[in-house]
């Protein structure tokens, strides 16, 4: 086990606790940049999906994992981002403006959705956000003059100034860079007062008010930041698929995003990325295994959705802290090797908290 000697307060807030962590992250980033050189287009395409799902998942993680506000409507923010970007670029507005516009519009709508969240919580909020997603889907279908309805829209590969991102590789780099920026921004928010305030709201709303945190302000803020991330991801999603229609943004997508953060581990940014990797690679794994599992299962439609559902249930029961939590435990086990006990990570149950509503 490592012990850290802190000599000043900055060492408490810096991004990387140990020098070695920093080096590992640098290695990871260099690795992700070098990966396209040795792999085929299909694999790069999957990596691109992982990155953009990660961006959306970070958004949802900030909202659900950190602020404690559940949302089953994130497909709608994804759709708003995708359609904003698609409509703007089709009308000749450059991608460099359409991308932030997608995020900002989604954030604006996020504020509107955040308002009912002030009065709703838990299951009711989930239903309200789900209704919102269905409304957005319906609007996209019906507003034919703007969105071409169920015919869908063709989106061109983006370009920023002289650079065009039409190849798999170049697009992967674009999304990867945005993901890194997104992670850094989220990390920065989380280590400053705003981040602490939203976590405070998750843990105790009463106490949050008592120390001067305005619930309306921070809940809507959290919704809008979350929607901003998801909107950006939506824009990238549209330009990746080069074709979108309302059916790309159904309830299934919202649940996929929820699956990502639950499987990855609620309340950790790592979890958003681990979860995205898991959820993107699961169908691939199924395709690979198709020949080895009975026809009865592999031939079924909706196998993916069923598996996500099963995975969420398994994780909630056996590993509520997700993949990231399990990783921490394994790491801790090795660090403490002969001394590790099963109970080390077990959270004590306390009964003195009064439930009031």
């Amino acid at each position, binding site marked *: 086990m490592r012990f850290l000697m802190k000599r*000043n*307060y*900055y060492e*408490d*807030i810096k991004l990387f606790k140990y020098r070695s962590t920093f080096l590992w992250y640098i290695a990871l980033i260099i690795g992700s940049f070098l990966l396209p050189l040795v792999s085929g287009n299909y694999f790069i395409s999957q990596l691109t999906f992982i990155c953009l799902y990660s961006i959306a998942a970070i958004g949802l993680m900030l909202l659900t994992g950190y602020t404690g506000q559940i949302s089953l409507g994130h497909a709608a923010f994804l759709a708003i981002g995708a359609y904003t970007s698609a409509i703007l670029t089709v009308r000749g507005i450059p991608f460099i403006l359409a991308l932030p516009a997608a995020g900002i519009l989604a954030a604006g709508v996020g504020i509107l959705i955040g308002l009912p969240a002030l009065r709703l919580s838990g299951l009711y909020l989930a239903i309200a956000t789900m209704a919102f997603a269905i409304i957005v889907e319906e609007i996209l279908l019906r507003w034919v003059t703007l969105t071409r309805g169920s015919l869908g829209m063709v989106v061109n590969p983006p370009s920023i100034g002289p650079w065009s991102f039409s190849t798999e590789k170049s697009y992967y780099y674009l999304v990867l860079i945005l993901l890194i920026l997104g992670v850094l*921004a989220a990390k*920065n*928010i989380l*280590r*400053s*007062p*705003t*981040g*602490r*305030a939203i*976590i*405070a709201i*998750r*843990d*105790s709303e*009463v*106490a949050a*008010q*008592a*120390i*001067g*945190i*305005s*619930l309306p302000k921070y809940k809507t*803020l959290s919704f809008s*930041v979350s929607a901003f991330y998801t909107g950006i991801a939506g824009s990238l999603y549209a330009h990746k698929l080069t074709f979108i229609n309302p059916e790309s943004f159904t309830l299934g997508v919202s649940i996929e995003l929820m699956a990502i953060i639950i499987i990855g581990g609620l*309340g950790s940014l790592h979890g958003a990325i681990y979860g995205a990797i898991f959820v993107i690679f699961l169908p691939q794994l199924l395709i690979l295994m198709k020949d080895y599992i009975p026809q009865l299962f592999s031939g079924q439609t909706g196998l993916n959705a069923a598996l996500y559902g099963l995975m969420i249930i398994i994780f909630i029961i056996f590993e509520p802290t997700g993949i990231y939590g399990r990783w921490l435990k394994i790491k801790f086990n090795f660090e403490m090797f002969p001394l590790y006990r099963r109970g080390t990570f077990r*959270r*004590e149950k*306390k009964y*003195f*908290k*009064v439930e009031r509503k």
Partner: protein
Amino acid sequence: MPFFEVQEISISFGGLKALVSVSFEIKRGEVFSIIGPNGAGKTTVLNCINRYYDVDEGSLFFKDKNITRIRPHVVAELGIARTFQNIELFKNMTVIDNLLLGMHCHRKSNLFTECIFTNSVRKQEIKSRNRAEGIIDFLDLQAFRDQLVGSLPYGVQKTVELGRALALEPELLLLDEPASGRNMEEKEDLIFWITDIKEELGITIIIVEHDMRLVKEISDRVLALNYGVPITQGTPQMVLEHPEVIKAYLGEGNGFIKSK
């Protein structure tokens, strides 16, 4: 005008009259205790001051400002901090994070400067940590600095909550049964801290407490409530010996206790 004033506040929940025209005034630098049997409405008074409840009648004044209808988080911004009877800490955070949260009102950063973590945000964070360290020193929490609050013993959690309230740098501190669940030694510490908070930090304190020894020792004035009705107020000696107060606490004709 007094430092803090409660004018004839009444509140009822359905048919239950929780408070019936309760009034009191507090001078700056005073320790004011509210006592009474269970269900007397002591915590309700604090919740009214904190604006968790809307009073039906009456008004509250803090430094000449009417705070009867302001939003709960504004109460904290004005400089009123509190602790809770059933600890309300942010359990999944460390002690130091809880203390830093107490300084939320004093932040100068906004979302955009925090996103890129500008130099000013960094300086502010370092400054906050410096101040949090002062509170850790004051309350002897060094050993628990980086531990998750949820796993700490009850008494320590209560202390962390007190620390979080102090981090707000309040002018008025509301303590809801700070001594409950503490052992004798921890109670001694508490008396020590409250005296220090009063005398060195110059913070005015309203305290709700059942431990009469503690009330006697620290308070300048005491208010006794029973079923939401104020019985009497005055010096601790006077209130604790008031026949109505004894009756409220012990009941009438309880010969067994009286003979002791």
